Each structure stands twice: as C-alpha cells, then as structure tokens.
C-alpha cells in the first residue's frame, strides 16, 4: 500500500456525500441564481431579463413589510424564548419529586409536527369558541381576534413559536448548567457570593457557548419558519403575519411570479447568512 494511495482514501469515502450535496444543494442553488436573472411564470419563460428582478426589490413595499415582520418575529421569539428558557432552567435546576417524569413532557413540543401544532392552536385561539378567549374573559379581556386581525396575528404566531421552542432553550441551558463543575459553585459559596453574583460571574460564563449554539440554531430556524404561518394565519390578514420566507412562498406558488420569488428567496438566504457566520465565528474562536 503506497502512502499516496492511502491519502486518497478519505476523499473516496466522502465522495457519495459530496455528490449528493452537489446534486441536491449546489446545483439547485446555482440554478436558482440563474432563475433570478429571468422572468419565469407558470406559463411563460424563462426569458432572460438581466437584473430587472433585483431592481424590483427597492420599490416592492411588500418585500419591506414582510422583512419588517420577519425581523420582529425573529427578534421577539429569540428574546422571549431565551428569557423564559433560562428562567425555567434555573427554576428546575434543583432536585424535586417527579423530575424524571416531568422533563420528557417538557421536551415534547419541539418534536411534534409543526403543522399539527398550528392546527391545534387554530382551535385554541378561535375567537368565538376557543378556550383561550374563554379563559381571558375571566380577566375582563374579551373577544380577541387572534388570527383574523392585523393587530394580533403576528402575536399569535410569536406565542405559538414560544410555546414550541422555549423547551429547546430550557433543554440546552439545563445541559449547560449541569456542565458547571461543583468546585466552582462551592468555591463561590465559600467566598460568600450571593445567588445573583454567582449567576453573573460563574453560571453565565459557563453558559456562554450553550447560549451561542441556541442563538445560532434558533436564528437559522426562525428565518425558515413557514409551517405554522401557513396553518394558523395564512400570513394574513394582509401581510401582517407574513415573514420573508412565507412571502417567497406566496410569490412563487400563489402568484407564480417565479423569477422574482427566486430573487426574494436569494436575498433571504444572505440575510440568514450574516448572523449565522457571525455566531459560528464566535463559537469556533472559543
């Protein structure tokens, strides 16, 4: 066995995976960039139109509206989920009876089919017959049009996402808390540190990489988010709960303005890429 031949081995073993990724990601992605330079509808095209699709972006009010919805959605779900998830993890850090039964229950939402969650919340949030409005009526809050008003539709979507993904933050932060060596905590206790001091100087320091992983994964996924919008609000009313992802879907498969949809989606990709690269950089520097 020559040394040179051996050095080829890893490439041979990698080649099926690389071939798949080339065929299923690189080639379609390149093809999509090509589509952005074309006018393509359900019945016509592709006709090469240069950068015309890109020039539509600045004056497309819906693009900027849905971008705004997207940023609100991503920012607020991340903030709420982090706050609740960290709080929950700190609260349930201690031992208590039934912990081993309760934890798996907490994890369920993040595994469940998102479409199923969307349908369930459609029932829960029904303005007339839904139990959520019924409970709220005890507090004097009445008849909120959760999914059918521009005022609450985005909030509904955000709350559902929080319900599904706070458990994820809880799960990861809990794992982070367990990784803190007992000596560090004991030492801080001996030094007479208060609970908050310990939280700030020791716990948080150990949690940093865990929080970064959460930020990375949740940011990527929040930009992809479509299933629940589709099933709960359909992006409406108007575009009040339409994220950029969902806008791409509407332009492509409802309006069949495929060339422009490809352009919007490509821009979405670059928007996701920026924070992702940032988080990965910080993570791999550690």
């Amino acid at each position, binding site marked *: 066995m020559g040394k040179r031949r051996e050095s080829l*081995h*890893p490439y041979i*073993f*990698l080649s*099926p*995976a690389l071939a*798949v*990724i080339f065929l*299923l*990601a690189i080639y*379609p*992605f390149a*093809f*999509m960039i090509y*589509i952005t330079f074309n006018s393509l509808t359900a019945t016509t095209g592709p006709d090469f139109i240069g950068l015309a699709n890109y020039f539509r972006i600045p004056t497309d009010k819906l693009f900027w509206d849905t971008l705004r919805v997207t940023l609100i959605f991503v920012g607020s779900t991340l903030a709420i989920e982090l706050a609740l998830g960290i709080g929950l993890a700190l*609260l349930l850090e201690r031992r*208590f009876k039934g912990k081993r039964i309760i934890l*798996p*229950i*907490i*994890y*369920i939402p*993040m*595994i*469940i*089919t*998102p*479409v*199923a969650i*969307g*349908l*369930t919340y459609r*029932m*829960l949030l029904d303005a*007339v*017959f839904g*139990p959520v409005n019924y409970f709220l009526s005890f507090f004097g809050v009445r008849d909120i049009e959760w999914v059918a008003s521009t005022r609450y539709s985005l909030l509904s979507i955000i709350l559902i996402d929080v*319900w599904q993904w706070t*458990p994820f933050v809880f*799960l*990861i932060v809990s*794992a982070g808390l367990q990784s803190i060596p007992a000596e560090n905590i004991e030492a801080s206790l001996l030094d007479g540190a208060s609970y908050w001091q310990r939280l700030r100087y020791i716990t948080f320091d150990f949690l940093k*990489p*865990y929080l970064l992983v959460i930020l990375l*994964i949740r940011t*990527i996924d929040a930009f*992809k988010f*479509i299933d629940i919008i*589709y*099933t709960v609000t359909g992006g409406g009313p108007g575009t009040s709960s339409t994220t950029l*992802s969902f806008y*791409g879907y509407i332009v492509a*498969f409802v309006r069949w303005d495929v060339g422009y*949809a*490809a352009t919007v*989606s490509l821009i*979405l*990709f670059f928007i*996701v890429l920026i924070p992702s690269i940032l988080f990965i950089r910080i*993570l791999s520097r550690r």
Partner: protein
Amino acid sequence: MAEALHKRVLFTIGLVTILIFLLFPFYWLIITSFKPDALSLTYPPKFLPSDLYLENYNIALFGGKFHLPVIPNIVNSFIVGFSNMALVLVISIFAAFALSKYNFRARNNFAFFILSQRILPPISIIIPYYVIMSSLGLLDTLLGLILTYLLINLPFSVWMLITYFNDIPKEIEEAAWVDGCSKFSAFLRITLPLSIPGIIVVAIFSVINSYNEFLFALILTGSRAVTLPPALSTFITIKGILWGQMAASTILGILPVIVFAMLVQKHLVRVMTLGALKG
C-alpha cells in the same frame, strides 16, 4: 422550616402552571377529537366530553363525506422517512468515517461545507427543486421526497456520526491496526459496532425530520405521494373547519412522532445541536 414550606408551595404552583401551559393544547386536541362538531362550537367551551364519540376516528381512519382518511398519508410519511433514513445512513457513515478517522488537509473545510447546508432556508431552494423534479418526472412521487430529504438529513447525520465515532477511544482501534487490520476494516469491526446506539439515535431522528417536514412535501406532491403534514393542512382550507375530524387525524398523525421522541429523549441535547453539545 416555615420558609422552606412556603418556598416549596410556590415552586409546586409554578411547576403546575408550566405543565398546564405545556399540556393544555394536547388536552384540548384530545377532547375535541372525541366531540361531535356541534359540541366543539359551543360557548362556553365544553372542557369534558359528554360521552365517548368515536365517529371522528372512524373518519380519520376510513374517510368520510368531506375528507379522505389520513392513514395513507401516514403510510407515505413512513415510507419516505425510513427509505430516506436507510440512504442517509449508508452515505453518512462513510463520510463521517472519513471525517472522523483521517487527518487530511481540507478536513474541517469539508465538514463545515456539509454543515452549511443547514443554513439554507428551504424556500431559497425549493423553486429549482420544483423545476428539476418536474423535468425528471419526480413530482408527486415518494422517490422525489426520499431524495429531497437527503438535503435535510445528510448534514445532520454526518455531523452527529462524527461525534459518535470520535467518542470511541482511539486506542481500541489502534490495537486492531497492530493485528494487521486496515483502517477501514478496523472501523467496520470495532468503531461501527460500538457506535450502534448513536447510529440508532441518528436513524430515529432523521425519520422524525422527514415525518415533520412540510414545505417540500406541500410543493412537490399533489395527490398520490402526499405525506402527513400537507394532508393535515388541507383541513384548514375547507370552509367551516371540521374540528373533530381534524383533531382525530392530528392525534393519529402525531402518535408515531411521540413514540419516536420517547425513544431518543435522553439524547435530545446532542441531536438538537447536531452534536455540538453533548448534554
């Protein structure tokens, strides 16, 4: 003591509140599935079923006047999920072996290149998929979905398997090299069998990923190859939602995922972070 008791009571109340928030949606789903639609549309809502009404399940299983049964869609989801998983495992075991056991120059670049597919929003690639699948005649076929989901599960699986293979101590494999085994046969005989628990976790989770996927399934199927999520989503496009049938179909649909999830529950930290964290 008094303070401890007071704290424990508060803690218990907090815990119960959290559990109610988490579980009430499931409770409502179950309750609705056992109610005739007339009882779902009442105010105040009925929180307990009056009697055991099974017609919704009858329709979910065998179909009714307004809706097709959901079982064929669940079968489709299973076929897609398991076939895809088999393909994913074969391809990713080789790739992860290369990336875990060889030291070559571009190793990290390859690994990150494979992972970077995870960033791509599905909407950013689905348009060319639609065009390509239709020109290959793969629209509305299970094969089309089985291939498409490679894009989702391959990066996940490769990264997970790398961490599982790295977990096996090098010394055990090196002992086999001394006995005259080649690198690959040492891997096949030692690392691979020792990694089976990890491989099973990856397998189950890639089935869950396929099972839950919505957007590609919605766009790339039409009638014959429709999997569970797009099938469920059709309930809301019908005028006047059929709550009971929808709830029963949803419950039948998510039962398999809950079973799968129970199996991998201890490995969730690792799975949900693609092996970045071990939990």
